[in-house]
């Protein structure tokens, strides 16, 4: 299998702060990989670099063999990368359905003149956008709340909505930033199920940032662990659990 995403010696500095240091890893097509590390390790910065929110200071990022260092965020999306956010970024005042439709419409574009006249393809493409969005809401269990304002959903459901919104972009690589943050054990179980099932059914490659260790260990066969911006370990859950550097990062050193 070919690597869908490859980071080679990626560095990111904010002034004097080295947020990411010589980071290299490879994600194979179709993998469900985990990215873990203590708070402030630079995990979200990695996502921001991949999606073009920040530019790398040095190093190379390749997506399907193509360099994506200099791409703008919206160009990254059109290549097939979608992400969710650690601190939810939903359009809170818009309805749940509108949130998903805003993303789903990327695949059903019509011209400006069709938009102001409602002639031509407007009706057909709006119906397709709506139908596809409803299917996805059904999938994540939000179909009955489609008309509700997104900001009024309970926290756990807002996270599911973000996943649905990202999925409607029809990505090949999905980056999930702490999807289980703030969830209780039951909700985490349900989320596990959702992630593994969308990974299977949508033919996705998923890279997941998570703090719930048991969750990552359960669903990700490939884990990258980082601390202070650098990779400290990579491998299977068993390898990670017994890796001395990982234990040191999470539990501290023995005196």
């Amino acid at each position, binding site marked *: 299998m070919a690597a869908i995403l490859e980071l080679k010696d990626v560095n990111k500095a904010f002034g004097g702060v080295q947020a990411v240091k010589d980071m290299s890893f490879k994600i194979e097509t179709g993998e469900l990989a985990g990215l873990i590390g203590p708070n402030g390790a630079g995990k979200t910065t990695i996502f921001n670099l991949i*999606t073009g*929110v920040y530019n790398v200071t040095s190093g190379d990022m390749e997506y399907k063999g193509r360099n994506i260092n200099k791409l*703008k*965020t*919206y160009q*990254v*999306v*059109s290549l097939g990368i*979608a*992400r969710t*956010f650690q601190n939810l*970024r*939903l*359009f*809170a*005042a*818009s309805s749940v359905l*509108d949130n998903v*439709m*805003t*993303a789903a*419409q*990327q695949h*059903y*574009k*019509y011209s*400006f003149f*069709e*938009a*102001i*006249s*409602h002639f031509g393809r*407007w009706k057909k*493409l*709006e119906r397709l*956008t709506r139908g596809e969005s409803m299917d996805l809401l059904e999938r994540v269990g939000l179909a009955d709340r489609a008309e509700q304002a997104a900001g009024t959903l309970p926290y756990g459901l807002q996270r599911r909505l973000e996943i649905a*919104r990202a999925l409607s*972009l029809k990505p090949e690589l999905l980056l999930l930033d702490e999807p289980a943050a703030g969830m209780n054990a039951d909700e985490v179980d349900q989320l596990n199920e959702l992630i593994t099932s969308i990974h299977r059914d949508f033919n996705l490659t998923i890279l997941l940032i998570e703090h719930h260790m048991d969750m990552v260990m359960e669903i990700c066969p490939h884990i990258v662990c980082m601390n202070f911006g650098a990779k400290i370990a990579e491998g299977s859950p068993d390898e990670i659990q017994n890796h001395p550097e990982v234990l040191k990062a999470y539990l501290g050193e023995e005196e």
Partner: protein
Amino acid sequence: MDGYVLGIINLLAINCIAALGVSLFTGFTGVFTLGHAGYMAIGAYTAAILTVEHGVHFIPAIIAGGLLAMILAYLIGLPTLKLVGDYYTIASLGLGEAIRLVIENWQSLTRGARGYPGIDNYTTLPVSLGFLLVMGIGMFFLVNSSYGRAFKACRDDYVAASLLGFNTARYRVLSLAISGFYCGVSGALLAGFMSFVQPVMFDMAKSTELVSVVVFGGLGSMSGCLIGTTILTLITELFRPISQYRMLIYGLVLVLVMVLRPEGIMGTNELSLRYIKSIFRRRKKMSATEEGAR
């Protein structure tokens, strides 16, 4: 109906067209503007000069006024809207005044501060209402399309919007260009309504009035900006007999709405049968829970 009432309706239609434009840019795309009177001035003078000096029919002249304002808006938007933040707002402050000053000093073309007289009285009621109808429907259709969702996405969270594949700067510029067109047409209609234009008609006060009706009606509601324009235009007209003091009432109404309903009259809702029904349903629910509490 007597001429005075017809005149007010005419003026109302003209103001509504400009408000629709500002509502798209400020209400739906989320960028404040303090210079849209400048685009109105461009439209007004273009239409005036074309009809008076070149004998162009008024309908192409009005559209030309809109287009010229749109092109200018596009050119201004390109550098200032690339950046996220209040850069355009600051630029628009200067821009509105700059347009006015250029018109005031370009004697040979615009006849300067004394104004431009002798414009045909082409803005009859059917003309202004016709323009309002067509442009109003277009605007409602636009905000109810994928473009409307894109504008709102750029307003609510530009990072999320760009990660859903929107080139947010492009959408902001597009929104400004459209709103420039609406204001240009509105200005061109105003020229034909007054049959006289003067730079001072398009000063800062006019620009702030355009934004205040939109905020008053509700940012993110097209019907709200129409209602806001109607109320504020009527206040200034109905209280004309008490001359200067009507601005007191105007100010008072603005302050009252901002205190009692900070989100504007309509908030982000559109006036529709469904919205009216939902108000009544909420009322019923409230009285039901009150009874339940007792």
